[in-house]
């Protein structure tokens, strides 16, 4: 099945006063039409950077230094800014975390949605407004006529997130990137937002890339999952497989750290912290925290290899398990 969006060897660097931070290290994955792909990792793992890079929103001091992002057969990293603008918000759109700060405080929410219609579909002002109201109703906001005239600070966090989703889905994009859409929301509101995303995804046929640090969210709505650690992609699998049979030590640790109501297990936090990506060592960046680390892990990066249908992992220890000779 050809992918809707295909990321290959994407690398991003940030130039800071203290040196070069390698935020993403040759990340590769596919997003298939209509699926919900989760991108999971601790904070600092590069999840958000991946999202921004996909839409070419990385600005100095950040630079995309390698790789390709193929959408509809075209590498988005090579097209002109004008062509990119035609993609953003139209074919691919994004929902940001902390919804209230992601909305312009001095424009009414209705206006913020409406102008996207005016921009991407050359809708007239009254037409754009009408469609904005439709979108607000679609995302489940009651009394859209009144709400559209309000400002971000007058809406609750959950409602702001719905507005963001409305903005993102306004032009029926084929891919929606949601960066931590439920962080900071009440558990019950978060559940509603997730439900909304899944529902709208199914209805519009849009694929969703869901970025989160919360495995519970992933378990709830995602079809497939990629796991990131310190800018490197370490495992990719369909959601059931990932939870039932996690292969990478990091994924295993993540899964083990989820509290479970049906088992009496001691919670085990993952030792250490995400390593500094300032002049990082070669090799696997989980090496210092890994219980199964081998010498080769520190020397060279393991490649992402298939370990089953819909299951890929980058780990020398796993290779060893399976009998692949590890150099």
């Amino acid at each position: 099945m050809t992918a809707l969006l295909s990321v290959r060897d994407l690398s991003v660097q940030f130039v800071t006063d203290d040196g070069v931070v390698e935020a993403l290290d040759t990340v590769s994955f596919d997003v298939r039409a209509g699926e919900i792909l989760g991108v999971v990792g601790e904070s600092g793992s590069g999840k958000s950077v991946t999202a921004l890079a996909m839409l070419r929103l990385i600005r100095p001091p950040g630079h995309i230094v390698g790789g390709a992002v193929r959408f509809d057969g075209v590498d988005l990293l090579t097209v002109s800014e004008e062509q990119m603008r035609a993609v953003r918000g139209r074919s691919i759109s994004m929902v940001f975390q902390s919804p209230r700060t992601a909305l312009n405080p001095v424009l009414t929410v209705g206006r913020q949605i409406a102008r996207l219609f005016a921009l991407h579909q050359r809708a007239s002002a009254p037409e754009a407004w009408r469609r904005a109201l439709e979108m607000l109703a679609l995302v489940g906001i009651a009394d859209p006529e009144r709400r559209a005239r309000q400002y971000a600070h007058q809406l609750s966090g959950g409602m702001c997130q719905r507005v963001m989703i409305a903005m993102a889905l306004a032009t029926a994009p084929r891919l929606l990137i949601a960066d931590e859409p439920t962080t900071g929301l009440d558990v019950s509101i978060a559940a509603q937002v997730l439900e909304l995303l899944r529902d709208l995804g199914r209805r519009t046929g849009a694929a969703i890339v869901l970025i989160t640090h919360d495995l519970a969210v992933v378990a709830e709505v995602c079809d497939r999952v990629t796991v990131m650690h310190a800018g490197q992609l370490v495992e990719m699998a369909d959601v059931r497989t990932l939870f039932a049979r996690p292969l990478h030590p990091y994924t295993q640790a993540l899964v083990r750290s989820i509290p479970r109501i049906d088992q009496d297990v001691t919670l085990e936090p993952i030792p250490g912290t995400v390593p500094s990506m300032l002049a990082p060592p070669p090799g696997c960046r989980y090496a210092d925290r890994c219980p199964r680390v081998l010498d080769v892990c520190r020397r060279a990066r393991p490649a992402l290899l298939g370990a089953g249908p819909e299951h890929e992992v980058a780990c020398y220890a796993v290779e060893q398990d399976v009998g692949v000779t590890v150099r």
Partner: protein
Amino acid sequence: MGFGGYVVRRLLLVVPTLIGVTIISFALTHLLPGNPALVKAGPLATPEVVQEIERSMGLDRPLPVQYWRYVSGLLHGDLGESASTGRPVLEDFRQRIPATLELTLASLLVAVGIGVPLGVLSAVHRDSVLDHVSRVLGVGGVAMPSFWTGLLLLYVFFYLLGVAPPPLGRLAADVTPPPRLTGLTVLDAALAGHGGALLSALHHLMLPALTLGFAVMAPLTRMVRATMLEILESDYVKAAWAAGLPRRRVVYGDALRNALIPVITVLGVIFGFLMAGNVVVEMVYAWPGLGHYAVTALVTKDPGPIQSFVLFVAVMYVFVNLAVDLLYGLADPRIRLR
């Protein structure tokens, strides 16, 4: 009710501030060395006459009563008399205000017209040559005394280049002044269609406005730049960009619109600097405004005008800050609708 409450609260704050201002002003007028009754009586007056005058001026009453007389006088427009012009100070003020107003407005135009774009461009093109130059000018400009700037400008543009007029007032000596409608020479000349007078007025306004405008520009530029930088990093700017809006529109539309709101608050502070600078610049260019009037009166041992000037400026400052706060409340929907 939220915004209404904000307005009411803000208005109420004005009253105690004004009272405080009049108390300080009263203290200053009563600190004047010498006995004002003596001054009024003249050197040949007998002690009885002086006492009589004292009584008529209320100088023998307790302080609170004198303060009350002072304030009621103020409310009736009694700002005392100027010994040098022989007229009520209020009248002198009325005659001189337009010149100061003209200079203040022109300087504000310069400061905002140059300062705001400079701050915006500095933020948008951070760490560029323009940014560095503007920051250097900002830091340097704050350290330059405005009278020095004015004199240097005079030297360069009048003496060396000959493009500026001599610092003798608002119009060239050989130009007929336009009929006085507003008192703002530029406006009056424009309204009356006197091309020659208009040009001359602008010509004479040029250097003073540049001097004063430059003197107050630095804090404005700095604040615009800082606010703009903060906003350019904000989530909603990123979100707007992610939604496909062209970068130029995001920066000069969304971002700028948000940035200009807090800048309103700086305008109040700028006004304070403007009034302070006004005095000095008027002296440098012999600009016949309020500051010039007050200072020259002092030099001729006429103390009334300067204290009235101080009070006047303070009251203006209070109301300008009030207007700025209310404007800010209107502009920011977070305050207007809560």
